[in-house]
């Protein structure tokens, strides 16, 4: 038996919106401590990881660890049938091949339930090296979304460079080029708008904007986003959901021709 009750459908809706354009099918691993998901996009260029801690739910019960293989588009269709403030109970009996979604309105006068067929999805779990990053940036997630969206109008890939001067995002396209520079915030008037940059070593890498745009669909989940960069290692973009968990994305860097000649 597995049972989890989300206090609000909205959270689950936002999570699905942030994943379903990147990954079609994924396994939700349900263990005593919580629900995790790890999946690569079809092209294997990026990796998405989700953690929802058991204590973040109204009710959370796992008798035996379960792996729920789910088509995220189908789940998203079901979630659209829930009002944002409905509670959502997800449960599965042992041995069942479907999972049930139960939506209840806040004043308990409306209930609806949907059953979704489970899939057997082959997925390998990547072991992520626990590496130190050369640079870490924390910024408002809306700011990150704006930069990525603005620069996407000019080109396909963005060069992110962190140096003493700050973080520079540069794009070059056929029509021209553009860049945005962020500097460490000095004032502390509005901590939610602050930009923090920690640089251990200067680092500069290019990434496909298409993927960054998909990652930024997670912006509604968290007011703040963290970016971590290391030379040659994948970029990490993390959206932390306070005490509930996080949604994080890894993206393989683009290796430009200039790097190969080294």
């Amino acid at each position, binding site marked *: 038996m597995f049972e989890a009750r989300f206090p609000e459908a909205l959270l689950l809706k936002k999570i699905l919106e942030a994943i379903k354009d990147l990954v*079609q*099918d994924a396994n939700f691993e349900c263990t005593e401590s919580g629900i*995790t998901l*790890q999946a*690569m996009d*079809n*092209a*294997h*260029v*990026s*990796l998405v*990881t989700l*953690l929802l801690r058991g204590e973040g739910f109204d009710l959370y019960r796992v008798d035996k660890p379960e792996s729920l*293989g789910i088509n995220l588009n189908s789940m998203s269709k079901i979630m659209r049938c829930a009002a944002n403030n409905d509670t959502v109970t997800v449960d599965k009996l042992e041995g069942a*091949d479907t999972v049930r979604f139960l939506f209840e309105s806040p004043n308990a006068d409306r209930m609806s339930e949907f059953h979704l*067929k*489970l*899939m*057997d*999805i*082959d997925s390998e*779990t*990547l*072991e*992520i*090296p*626990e*590496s*130190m990053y*050369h640079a870490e940036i924390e910024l408002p997630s809306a700011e990150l979304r704006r930069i990525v969206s603005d620069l996407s109008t000019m080109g*396909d890939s963005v060069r992110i460079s962190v140096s003493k001067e700050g973080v520079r995002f540069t794009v070059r396209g056929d029509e021209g080029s553009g860049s945005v520079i962020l500097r460490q915030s000095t004032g502390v008037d509005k901590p939610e708008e602050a930009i923090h940059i920690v640089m251990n*070593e200067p680092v500069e890498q290019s990434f*496909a*904007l*298409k*993927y960054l745009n998909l990652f930024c669909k997670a912006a509604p989940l968290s007011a703040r986003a963290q970016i971590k960069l*290391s*030379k*040659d*290692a*994948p970029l990490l973009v993390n959206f*932390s959901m306070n005490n509930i968990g*996080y949604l*994080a994305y*890894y*993206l*393989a*860097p*683009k*290796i430009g*021709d200039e790097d*190969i000649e080294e």
Partner: protein
Amino acid sequence: MCGRFALYYSREQLERVAGTTRWADAKDQEKRYHYQPRYNVAPQQTVPLLRTVSGERVLQPMRWAFPIRGRTFGKGESPPIVINVRAETALEKASFRSALDAGQRAVVIANGFYEWSAADAPGEQQDVGKIKTMTKASRIPYFIYHGVTKRESKDHLAPRNAHDMIDRPLFMAALFVEETEMNRFAIFTVAASDKIQWMHNRMPALLETEDQLQAWLDVEQVPARVAVHRCLQPTEQIVWHPVSNTVSSVKNEGPSLIEPRRDEPGKKPGLDIRSAFARGLKRSPSAQDLQAPETKQMRHTYQANR
């Protein structure tokens, strides 16, 4: 399109997968054909296809080059050939129509096929200008094979791994013409499924179920129009991994061709998250920190990072 595939079963495995040990009566050139497992089957080459003769399944060697008749060609030129037939228009085109009407349907058995991504980096596939200038050598080949995603398959599959999956056959729908020396065939293609669109816009028509396989081969009971509509559909039941560019040359052969790609020194590395993690691990200055129980499952990693 589908322009390269692998068929590396032993003769006995092939016969088991095909469900027959009968081989067709040999024509002139077929007499000289000996089945050999292959990792790099290319157009103009000969492979055994599965077809039915008088209601019975047989394996018959055929050449991968479907001749287009009725087209004029200059002196000294070979007649035009095709290796793929678009399923959507096959019934309308005279050369394919006559073969379909004559019930010349067959099945290519393969362990998997190769496809070169339309652009060197996913996400740039819309950039037509770049694709035009890109040579096959600068694109990344992928080996695509049967993926198990249906829940029902869980019961009779013991421990699953990539190798297990590669051993499951793909049945590709094909069309052939009778020739005096040796029959010639082309593989049907359909619009690529959503899963694989990023790589290429076409994929071979894979017969997914036993029913589809049976219907495609049953040329006496199932008319061409019905078979085309019922059997030739895009499928999501596939998985893939990038492989080395050595497969791009038809001269290369051997099991190394289907092995997952590793970054080649001096060559542009694959834009793959796995190899990116491996590179980061190798060259990261903090690599000495990563010597011991360094690679933990990521949920642990995250708890540590928070």
